[in-house]
């Protein structure tokens, strides 16, 4: 079946089987390997992408379900001005260890800040509660998302 998904701002048309998962389509079809596959059983959240701005697990959505919709992966976070505030903050605050969960954590963080520009630590923790970091580096992930929120709102003020 032919589908067209807008991935990170460009339309991507492909002929796919209905059973193809969105995550496989992103990685193999579109060649964007920043979206990872971890548990593959809807538990770990490393396959998180934004569909029309909302974070979802792309291992638990069919590629055909994304037909006509916009998908943002970690590769789409950076802006013309450089790194997204969340990306910069993960670098500055050492918000990653092995890096496997990082694309998903950054996307969830970016979606949270979009929705709630000044989240509490508690709100950040609940927002990332569907995403596992097996390095257990949660402290710095929360710090990084908070730093990104602060940077994004100070940019907005200027």
């Amino acid at each position, binding site marked *: 079946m032919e589908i067209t998904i807008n991935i990170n701002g460009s339309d991507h048309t492909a002929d796919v089987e*209905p*059973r193809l998962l969105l995550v496989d389509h992103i990685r193999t079809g579109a060649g964007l390997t920043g979206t990872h596959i971890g548990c593959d*059983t809807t538990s770990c959240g490393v396959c998180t992408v934004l569909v029309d701005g909302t974070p979802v697990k792309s291992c*638990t959505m069919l590629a055909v379900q994304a037909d006509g919709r916009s998908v943002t992966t970690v590769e789409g976070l950076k802006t013309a001005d450089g790194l997204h505030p969340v990306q910069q903050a993960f670098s500055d605050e050492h918000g990653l260890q092995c890096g496997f969960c990082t694309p998903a954590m950054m996307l969830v963080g970016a979606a949270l800040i979009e929705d709630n520009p000044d989240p509490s630590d508690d709100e950040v923790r609940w927002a990332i509660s*569907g995403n596992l970091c097996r390095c257990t580096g949660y402290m710095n992930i929360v710090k990084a998302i908070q730093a990104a929120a602060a940077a994004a709102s100070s940019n907005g003020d200027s």
Partner: protein
Amino acid sequence: MLPARFDYIAASSVEEAIAAKAEGGDETRFLAGGQSLLPMMKLRFATPSKLVDINGIARLDAIRRHNGQLHIGALVRHADIAASDEVSGAIASAAPWISDPLVRNLGTLCGSVAHCDPEGDWNSVLLATGAEVVAQGPSDRRRTIDIGDFVQDFFTNSLADDEMVLAIHIPVPSGPSGGSYQKLERKVGDYATVGVAAHLELAADGTIAAAGVAMTSVAPINRKATEAEALLVGNAPSTELFTEAGEAAAAAADPRDDVRGSARWKRRVVAAFTQRALAAAAEQAQA
């Protein structure tokens, strides 16, 4: 991990979806949030020959009050319920406890209810609040099914092969009411170790006019604690009464020893959660 092969139809109307389902029968499944169905298909616990995707159907995503009921459509996601100002009581209390934030963004109330997972949270909440399931068949054939009759057994509902869950209707009491869902989970996204939903309606003199208590993960299916409900009705809310109701609920529970804890301990959690849920419900009703 890919699911087994299946045919896929993206329906653009309820009529089209039901016609496709009727044609395929039991081997055809509706796809809404897919947060239970797709994992089951990947693990080959489910191998439908056809999926009818209802996500493109308009007007199924509304939460609204109508004729003394709250109507929640087939495409309302758990996250929509958690964010809605229209919901209150046990429904509002349970929504943030469904699975994890990412699953809540896709999974639907109606899908969870139809799935009839005995460890699912929503069916306890609906049993406690006395909800109805609206089942739409071909042409104008539509019926409402009491949630107690809808849930037949684990993973078994009473829908016919040509019916679709169009909405859930939850009564909105005209007098003071309140509700709460208490859930113990080992981690976000895990099934409930124990869950208890409570719903109370108060009469003008402050006594309990109606009560609903139902339990998750402590019986083969979501179970109403009818003895506890009977104890409550006609009496004034009090800690003693709620403690007594908690013991009645614990007696009605039939938990098993498993990795989440012993049956004996889970029964104590049922007693404590029932008391807490009722206290929270009464506090809301009296506010």
